[in-house]
C-alpha cells in the first residue's frame, strides 16, 4: 500500500489527516493521472468539434449544399437556348397544376363550386363527381396561371394542392423550329439542338439529379434571330408569291462556318408540335437531298479551273446539243455558237459545262467532289441529316450530267458549305450552329481549291449577277455574286418539264465575301404578276430581298456601286 492510493487508505489514517489536506490530497494525488487522461480525451473531442466547425465556417460553398429541392429535381430543368446576341430561343417556365385528394375533401359540392368560380372553363358537375369519389389523387387542371393559383390558394379548400412543372416555351414559335428542335412531355430533347444538348451533357446531368434551372448556364447558338426572321419571312413571301410547295434557305458565315440563319418551310410551332412529324415538315436544308441543277456548275468550273483543264480564256463549243445513247443534253438558253468560258457560266450552258467536265475527266471530278464533301453525310450539331445519293456507276454520262447538277443528290447545306469554300479563298470549313471564332475555324479548315481559283470564281459569280441570269439578285451597294439553278424534278421516275427545283447560291460582298446565302424553292409556279418560272425569276429576287434587309444587321457596310464596277473591269 502506497501513500498515492487514497481509496485503499485505512479509515484511521484518513481521520488523522486534517480536512484541508484531505481535500487537496484527494485531488492532488493518485486520481490525477486518470483525470488527466479523461480531460485530455474530452479536450481532444472538443478540439475536433471546434476544428470541424471552423472548416465548415470557412468553406462557404458547403453552405446549404446538402439540401436538394425534390420539386426542382422532378421537373427536369433545361438551360435557356439563346441566339448569338443573347435573345431567348427557348426557355423553361414554371407552370402550376392543381390537384385534389378527394379522400381529404370535406364538402365536395362546395369545393367544386369554389374551384369553378376561379376556373370557369371547368365542367362543374364532372368535377363534383370526381371530388366526391374515394380516389387518393386526381388532377383538377394542369398548367394554370400564377394569378389563378393565388386565388385558389386563398380559397383555402382542404385537400386541394399544387405541383409545379417545367414547361418548355419557345417565344419565337416557328421562327427557328428546325434548328432549335423539340422536347417531349418530360422536357427531354427529341429533335434539333435540344436533342444535341441532351445527348452531350444534359441527359447525364439529369440522371445524376444535378440539373436545376438556376445552375444551368444558357447555351448560345450561332444564329441571329433578326436575320433568321428576315430569311423566314422572305421564304414565306416567295412561297406564297410563286405557290411553291416548299422553300429553304441559309445564311452562312464564309470565314467561320457559323450558320446565321436557316429556315425550311413549311415548318411547325414547337410550342404545339402537332405537325412536327408530317413528312413535308422535314428540314429540307439538312435532311433533304436534291439534284440542285445549275448551281452545281460553280463546282464544275472550280474543278476545271483549279485542275488547269480549262482557263478563263478558253472557248467551248456549245453549237449543238450532245447526244449520248438515248439521252440528249441541251441548253435552256441555247446560243448555238462557240462560247467563252465566262459565257458558259453566265448563260448557264449545260452543253458547255458537260464539255468542260469531260476535259476534267471522271476520276478527277470524283476526287474534287469528294474534297468538296459531296460524297459524305455532312454532320452538324443537328441530329437530322441525310446522306447524299451517289450514282452507283460513274460513266461519261454521269460525268456530264453531274457537271450541271443532275445525277448526284446532296443536301442544300452541303452546297452552301462548299460554295463558302469557293469564295473564301479555297478553305472548306465544317458548318456549325454554335458560335465559333475565326481562329477556331482556321484550325478546322481544309484547303480544297487554290486561292487563285477562288478569285476567278468570285469574278464569275459577280459577272453572272451583273450580266447573266442572276441580275434579279443584285442589291445596289452590297456587291452580290451568285449562280442560278433551275433543276427539273423527278416525277414518276422521269424528269418533268413542269415541276422544278429552283435555287440561287450567292455570296456577298463578292470582292471580300463575308456571307453565303442560298435559297431553294420547291416547285414554284409563275407569279400572278407575270415573269418566268426559272430561278432567275423567283429564287434570285428572294436572295436579293434577304441580303437587302439583313446586310446592315450582319455588319456589312454598303459601298457605292461604281467601285464595284471598277473591280469587274480590272478583273
Amino acid at each position, binding site marked *: 500500500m502506497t501513500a498515492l492510493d487514497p481509496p485503499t487508505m485505512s479509515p484511521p489514517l484518513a481521520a488523522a489527516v486534517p480536512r484541508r489536506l484531505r*481535500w487537496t490530497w484527494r485531488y492532488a494525488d493518485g486520481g490525477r493521472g486518470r483525470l488527466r487522461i479523461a480531460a485530455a480525451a474530452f479536450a481532444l473531442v472538443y478540439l475536433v468539434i471546434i476544428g470541424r466547425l471552423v472548416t465548415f465556417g470557412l468553406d462557404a460553398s458547403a453552405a*446549404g449544399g446538402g439540401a436538394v429541392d425534390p420539386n426542382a429535381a422532378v421537373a427536369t430543368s433545361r438551360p435557356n437556348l439563346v441566339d448569338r446576341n443573347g*435573345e*431567348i430561343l427557348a*426557355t*423553361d*417556365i*414554371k407552370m402550376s397544376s392543381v390537384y385534389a385528394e378527394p379522400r381529404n375533401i370535406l364538402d365536395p359540392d362546395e369545393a367544386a363550386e369554389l374551384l369553378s368560380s376561379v376556373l370557369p372553363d371547368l365542367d362543374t358537375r364532372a368535377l363534383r363527381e370526381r371530388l366526391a369519389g374515394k380516389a387518393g389523387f386526381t388532377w383538377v387542371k394542369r398548367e394554370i396561371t*400564377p394569378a389563378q393559383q393565388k386565388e385558389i390558394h386563398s380559397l383555402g379548400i382542404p385537400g386541394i394542392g399544387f405541383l409545379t412543372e417545367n414547361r418548355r*416555351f419557345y*417565344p*419565337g*414559335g416557328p*421562327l427557328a423550329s428546325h434548328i432549335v428542335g423539340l422536347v417531349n412531355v418530360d422536357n427531354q430533347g427529341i429533335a434539333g439542338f435540344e436533342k444535341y444538348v441532351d445527348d452531350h451533357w444534359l441527359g447525364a446531368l439529369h440522371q445524376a439529379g444535378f440539373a436545376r*434551372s*438556376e445552375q444551368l448556364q444558357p447555351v448560345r447558338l450561332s444564329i441571329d*434571330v*433578326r436575320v*433568321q*426572321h*428576315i430569311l423566314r*419571312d422572305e421564304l414565306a413571301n416567295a412561297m406564297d408569291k410563286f405557290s411553291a410547295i416548299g422553300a429553304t434557305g441559309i445564311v452562312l458565315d464564309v470565314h467561320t462556318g457559323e450558320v446565321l440563319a436557316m429556315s425550311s418551310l413549311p415548318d411547325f410551332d414547337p410550342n404545339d408540335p402537332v405537325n412536327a412529324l408530317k413528312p413535308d415538315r422535314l428540314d429540307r436544308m439538312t435532311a433533304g437531298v436534291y439534284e440542285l441543277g445549275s448551281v452545281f456548275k460553280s463546282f464544275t468550273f472550280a474543278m476545271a479551273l483549279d485542275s488547269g483543264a480549262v482557263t478563263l480564256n478558253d472557248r467551248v463549243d456549245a453549237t449543238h446539243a450532245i447526244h449520248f445513247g438515248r439521252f440528249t443534253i441541251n441548253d435552256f438558253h441555247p446560243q448555238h455558237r462557240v462560247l467563252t468560258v465566262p459565257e458558259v457560266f453566265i448563260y448557264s450552258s449545260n452543253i458547255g459545262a458537260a464539255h468542260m467536265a469531260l476535259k476534267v475527266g471522271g476520276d478527277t471530278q470524283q476526287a474534287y467532289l469528294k474534297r468538296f464533301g459531296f460524297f459524305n453525310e455532312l454532320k452538324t450539331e443537328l441530329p437530322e441529316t441525310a446522306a447524299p445519293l451517289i450514282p452507283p456507276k460513274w460513266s461519261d454520262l454521269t460525268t456530264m450530267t453531274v457537271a450541271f447538277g443532275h445525277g448526284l443528290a446532296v443536301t442544300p447545306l452541303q452546297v452552301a458549305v462548299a460554295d463558302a469554300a469557293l469564295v473564301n479563298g479555297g478553305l472548306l470549313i465544317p458548318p456549325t450552329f454554335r458560335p465559333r471564332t475565326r481562329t477556331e475555324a482556321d484550325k478546322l479548315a481544309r484547303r480544297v481549291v487554290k486561292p487563285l481559283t477562288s478569285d476567278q470564281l468570285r469574278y464569275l459569280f459577280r459577272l453572272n449577277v451583273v450580266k447573266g441570269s442572276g441580275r434579279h439578285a443584285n*442589291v*445596289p*451597294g*452590297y456587291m452580290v455574286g451568285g449562280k442560278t439553278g433551275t433543276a427539273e424534278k423527278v416525277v414518276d421516275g422521269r424528269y418533268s418539264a413542269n415541276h422544278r427545283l429552283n435555287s440561287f447560291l450567292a455570296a456577298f460582298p463578292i470582292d471580300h465575301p463575308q456571307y453565303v446565302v442560298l435559297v431553294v424553292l420547291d416547285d414554284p409556279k409563275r407569279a400572278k404578276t407575270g415573269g418566268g418560272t426559272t430561278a432567275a425569276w423567283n429564287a434570285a429576287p428572294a436572295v436579293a430581298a434577304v441580303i*437587302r*434587309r439583313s*446586310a*446592315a444587321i450582319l455588319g456589312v*457596310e*454598303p459601298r*457605292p456601286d461604281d467601285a464595284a464596277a471598277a473591280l469587274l473591269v480590272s478583273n
Partner: protein
Amino acid sequence: MGRVIDLLLLVAMIVGAVITYDMKHKAEIAADRVARLEANIASERDKIRLLNAEWSMLTQPARLQAVVDKYADYFQLQPFSPDQVAAIDEIPLRPQGAHGDAERTLARIAAGERVR
C-alpha cells in the same frame, strides 16, 4: 473556497446555458429567414424567367414587323436603302465659322471620344 468555486461554476453554467439557448434561438430565426428569403428568391427567379420570356415574345422580329406595318402610315416609316448608310467620318464637316463648336464636337465624335 470550494463553495465559491462551485458557485462560480454554477453561475457560469447557467450563463452558458442562457447564452447557448439565445444563440440557438437566434439561429433558428435566422434559418427561418434564410428559408423564406430563398423561397422568395426562387419565386423572383421564376418571375424573372417568365418576364424574360414575355419580353422576348413581345420583341420578336415577326411581331415588331407586324406592328410596324400596322402603324406605317402614322409614323411614315420606310425601309432604309443602302445609300442611306454611312460611317461618321464620311459626313462632311461644316464650313469654318459660325458653327465652329459643332464642328469640333463632330471631330471629337469621329475620333472615337464620348461626347455628352
